[in-house]
C-alpha cells in the first residue's frame, strides 16, 4: 500500500488538516500494527526464532527521521529496526515473510528479523551486533562524497550503542572527513534490563558528539512532527558535509525481546513511560484539527487489513529449499561451498575427484 494514495478516499474535511500530519500518523499506525502482527506470527509458531525486538513506543523517532530523509539517502538500523524500515517504504509482506524465514522474504529467509534490508530502498542492513552498522554509514558517506552523490547516510541505533567504542571512531572519522552522515540514537532508556544511567556515567551525549566535532541535538520522541522538523534541519547540515548526531528520547513499551516481561522495571515507571505514546499524541492532534473519529477508524481498518494480508502471506508462502543455504555466500558467478556430505563421499571414494559431486 503506497501511503501516497492512501488518503485519496478521505473525507471532505481533509483540506483542513495538514497532509503531513495525517501521513505521519498513518506511518506511526502502520508500524504499531505491523509490530503487533509480528507478535501474532510468533504466537502462531510462524516466526523464525524468538529474537523479535518490537519498536512499539519508538514509532515517532523512526517515522520522524525517515520522513525527513530524501529518497537517495541510505541507512542502517539496529536489531529493533522494523519501524524504520517500514517508514522508509518497505513492503510489510516481504518483511513478515523474512521474519518467518521464508523464501519470499527480503533476504530469502536467511536473515530474519535482525537482518533485513532492501538495498533498493537505501537500506544497507539491519544489524544484530550492537553498533555493528554504525561504521557502514561512514563508508557510505565517503562514497557519496567521492562519487558526488547528493545523499546522506543515516545510522539508527539504540542507547546501548552509546557505550560501543566504534561509535566514537565513526564520529571522529565522519567529522574529520566532513562526510554527509547522521547518527541517530533512539534512546528508549534501556538496553535489555539495563537502564541507561546504569550503563553510562554521563548522559551528556550531545556534548560528547560535539567534542568529536559533530553537530548535536537532543529531541523528544513523543511528537513525530517535532522529530521530523528537527531531523530536516540536521539532515540539511549533514548534507553539506557537517556530520551530525541526534538523540531522540522515548520509552520501550514492552520487554527487550518477545519473551521478556521486564521484571527489572518498576510498574509505575512503565505506566509513566507508556503514557509517552507518540501514536496517541499524534491522534490527539488530528482530532483537535478536526479529523473525525470515524475517519480515523477507517484508517485503522485499512492498516489492519494491510497487515493481516501481510501476516497471511508470511504464514503461507513457501520455505526456502534446503540447498539454497549454499547460495549467496560468494558472488553468483562463483562456485558454492562444497557440502560436508560431499566431502565425506569423496574421502571414501577417492576416485571421485573435486568438482564431480557438488
Amino acid at each position, binding site marked *: 500500500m503506497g501511503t501516497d494514495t492512501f488518503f485519496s478516499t478521505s473525507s471532505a474535511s481533509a483540506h483542513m488538516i495538514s497532509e503531513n500530519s495525517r501521513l505521519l500518523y498513518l506511518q506511526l499506525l502502520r508500524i504499531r500494527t505491523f509490530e503487533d502482527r509480528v507478535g501474532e506470527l510468533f504466537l502462531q509458531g510462524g516466526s523464525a526464532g524468538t529474537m523479535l525486538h518490537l519498536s512499539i513506543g519508538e514509532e515517532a523517532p523512526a517515522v520522524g527521521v525517515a520522513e525527513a530523509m530524501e529518497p537517495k539517502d541510505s541507512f542502517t538500523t539496529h536489531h529493533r529496526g522494523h519501524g524504520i524500515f517500514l517508514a522508509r517504504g518497505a513492503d510489510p509482506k516481504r518483511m513478515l515473510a523474512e521474519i518467518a524465514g521464508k523464501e519470499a522474504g527480503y533476504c530469502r529467509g536467511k*536473515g530474519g528479523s535482525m537482518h533485513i534490508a532492501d538495498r533498493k530502498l537505501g537500506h544497507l542492513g539491519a544489524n544484530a551486533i550492537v553498533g555493528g552498522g554504525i561504521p557502514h554509514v561512514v563508508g557510505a558517506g565517503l562514497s557519496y562524497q567521492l562519487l558526488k552523490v547528493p545523499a546522506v547516510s543515516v545510522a539508527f541505533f539504540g542507547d546501548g550503542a552509546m557505550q560501543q567504542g566504534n561509535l566514537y571512531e565513526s564520529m571522529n572519522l565522519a567529522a574529520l572527513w566532513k562526510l554527509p552522515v547522521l547518527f541517530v540514537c533512539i534512546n528508549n532508556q534501556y538496553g535489555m534490563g539495563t537502564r541507561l544511567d546504569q550503563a553510562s556515567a554521563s548522559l551528556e551525549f550531545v556534548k560528547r558528539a560535539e567534542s568529536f566535532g559533530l553537530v548535536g541535538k537532543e529531541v523528544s520522541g513523543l511528537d513525530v512532527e517535532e522529530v521530523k522538523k528537527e531531523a530536516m534541519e540536521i539532515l540539511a547540515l549533514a548534507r553539506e558535509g557537517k556530520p551530525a548526531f541526534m538523540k531522540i528520547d522515548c520509552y520501550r513499551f514492552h520487554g527487550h525481546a518477545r519473551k521478556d516481561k521486564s521484571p527489572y522495571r518498576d510498574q509505575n515507571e512503565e505506566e509513566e513511560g507508556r503514557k509517552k505514546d507518540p501514536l496517541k499524541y499524534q491522534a490527539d492532534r488530528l482530532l483537535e484539527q478536526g479529523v473525525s473519529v470515524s475517519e480515523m477508524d477507517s484508517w485503522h481498518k485499512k492498516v489492519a487489513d494491510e497487515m493481516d494480508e501481510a501476516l497471511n502471506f508470511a504464514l503461507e508462502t513457501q520455505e526456502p529449499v534446503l540447498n539454497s*543455504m549454499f547460495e549467496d555466500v560468494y558472488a553468483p558467478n562463483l562456485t558454492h*561451498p562444497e557440502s560436508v556430505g560431499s566431502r565425506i563421499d569423496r574421502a571414501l571414494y577417492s576416485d571421485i575427484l573435486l568438482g564431480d559431486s557438488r
Partner: protein
Amino acid sequence: MKEMTYRDALRLGLQESMQSDPTIVILGEEVGRYGGAYGVTKGLLHEFGEDWVRDTPISEEILVGAAVGAAMTGLRPVAELMYVDFITLAMDQLVNQAAKIRYMFGGQISVPMMLRSQGGTGRSAAAQHSQSLEAWVMHTPGLHLAMPADATDAYVLIKHALTLADPVIFLEHKGLYAQSFPFNPESAPPWGRAKISRSGNDCSIICYSRMVQRSLEAAAQLAELGVRVEVVDLRTLHPLDMETVTKSVRKTGRVLVVTEDCLTAGVSAELSARITEENFEYLEEPVLRMAGEDIPIPVAPALEAASVPTNESIKQSILKLMRKK
C-alpha cells in the same frame, strides 16, 4: 542418580567457586539484575552483592580488557560474553593481551581470568548469534579452552578452570542450557582428560560440546544396526588429550570427527590432522570430518538445522565409514 540442568550446574560451579575464592568477580552484560541472557548467573547478584556480580555496559572490548587488568592485579574475573559471536569485538584483548601477557613479560605476570560465553545453533538466531568460534581460540597459544557437553562437566570443568593461573575460555552451548543430565561429579575425569562417553570397537567418534549428545544418539541407533561406536568427549580443547583419543583410534581404526564449527580450518581439521599424524598406520580409512557447513548460519529453521551435523547425518556418515552404505 541426581539430575541437573546444564545451566544449574554452571551456576552451582560458579557459586561454590565464589564461596571459596573471595577474589572471583563476575562481569558481563545483564549478568546481574537480569540473571544472564541464558539465566546462568541468576541469583548470584543476590548472594554475592553488586560489587562482585557486575553488570557492564555494552562494551565488549573493555569488558574483556578490564578483566585482563583485574586478573593482573589480584582478582579472578569471570567475564561473560553474551554470545561468542561478540568475541570479534574483544579479540585484541583476548589474543594480543590476555594470551600473551605471561609470555611477553617473561613469566612475571599471570592473567588468571575466565571468559565465559556460549555458541552454536538451534534458536534461529541467525548469522551473528549462532557461530561456533572455538577454532580461533584453539589457534591462540596461551589460552585454555573448555567446552563441556553435559551438566557434570559443566560443573567440574568450571570449578577447575577457576583455579588455573592462565586465561581460560569457557564455551557453553545455547542448546544445552535447559537440558537435564545425570549429575555425578565424582565420576568425572580430571581437567585435561577426555572421556569415553560410550565404548565400542568398530569406530570412534571424536567430539565435544553439543555434538557429544548427537553422537551418542547416533551411536545408540547404530547399536541397533550392530555397529558399536565409541564416543570420545574431548571436554577441553586445550589441553587436548591425545592419549585417550589415540587409544580409541588404535582400537577401532576408523574415526569420525564431529564438530559444530565451520569445516574449513576448524577444530575438525586439527583433530583430523593430529589423529592421522599420530596413528597413520592404525587407520583403516581416512579420518572423516563432519562439521558445520562452510556458510554463515541462515535464520530459516530448516536451513539452520541442516547447516550442522544432526543425529541422522552422523549416523549416515558412520554407516558410510563402516562401508555399510
